[in-house]
């Protein structure tokens, strides 16, 4: 069954089995998109669950004008941005009131428990990259994550973000310039 049939079943007869099929079909896409915004797969999966709950509730408003994947990407991006904003606020408040032991781990969620030196190095790099990505302006960040974590084309990114293809080009150009500078900061080059 294609997306359209499944969506029809969910809307018309509240068919949970049909919805489960949609969830399975888009699970990887949503979880890995959310992972672009947060530091761990645990957080990404929690977020992804909320994305699908919202998808279920918003399906009656989906009129097949855009691809279902575009619709889902929009929800995933919004949920992720809200999550990161909330985390930032929490860290801010924590810093005001708490003894501030390790705000970075709070800001980024918990890194995967590393086994061996390579895994530790990967986790460190992953954290460093995520820190830099999270410092980008939101629209640059969204464009970069959709391009880098989902390998979407400029046109697809433009559809998700509701901007022109040339805007996406310029967002990605600026995102990469800023990211490069942040990653090289303090590296004495």
């Amino acid at each position, binding site marked *: 069954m294609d997306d359209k049939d499944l969506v029809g079943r969910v809307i018309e007869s509240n068919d*949970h089995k049909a919805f489960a099929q949609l969830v399975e079909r888009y*699970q990887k896409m949503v979880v890995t998109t959310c992972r672009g915004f947060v530091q761990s797969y645990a957080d990404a999966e929690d977020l992804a*669950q909320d994305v699908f*709950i919202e998808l279920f509730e918003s399906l009656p408003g989906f009129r097949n004008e855009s691809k279902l994947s575009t619709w889902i990407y929009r929800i995933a991006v*919004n949920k992720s941005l809200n999550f990161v904003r909330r985390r930032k606020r929490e860290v801010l408040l924590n810093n005001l009131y708490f003894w501030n032991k390790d705000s970075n781990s709070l800001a980024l969620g918990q890194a995967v428990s590393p086994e061996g030196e390579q895994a530790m190095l990967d986790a460190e790099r992953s954290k460093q990259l995520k820190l830099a990505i999270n410092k980008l302006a939101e629209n640059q960040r969204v464009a970069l994550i959709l*391009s*880098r974590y989902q390998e979407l084309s400029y046109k697809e990114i433009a559809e*998700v973000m509701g901007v022109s293809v040339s805007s996406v080009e310029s967002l990605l150009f600026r995102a990469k310039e800023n990211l*490069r500078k942040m990653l090289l900061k303090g590296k004495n080059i």
Partner: protein
Amino acid sequence: MNCKLAQQNMLNYLDGTIDKSIINAFEEHVGSCSSCRDELQLLKPIYKQVEGDLGEYAPNPYFAAKVLAKLTEKREKPTTIFTQKSYILAVSLAAAAVAVGLFVGIQFVSSGSSLAQPEIATILANDYSNFSDSNPYNFEVEEVDTSLNK
């Protein structure tokens, strides 16, 4: 190619989105310019970590079941979404509770209690943050905006 153009294309080169027509010039420049080469070598392992992150993905076979369970639960007991203002209020309350907890903790510790300060603080904080679950105040609810264009 000059250094500036090479630098602007470093991440594009690493993620494969570099314009095909300038790949040769880019590689030539990096081959002969040690400063750009060093920069590329520093950026590569960090920027390439995206592939590492994606490679770690292991689909949770119970994911769809969890979503459906959450949906059913939500239908039986509709929950509310706090506004930003009320959220901050709740967090502030919890934080204030911790501050009080810390103070009380210090009193306990100085009077010879075996409970350490953070434990008391946590207990008090948990008590206070439970408020956000039962929602004793009439916080206004807001719809979640699904469009990126506001």
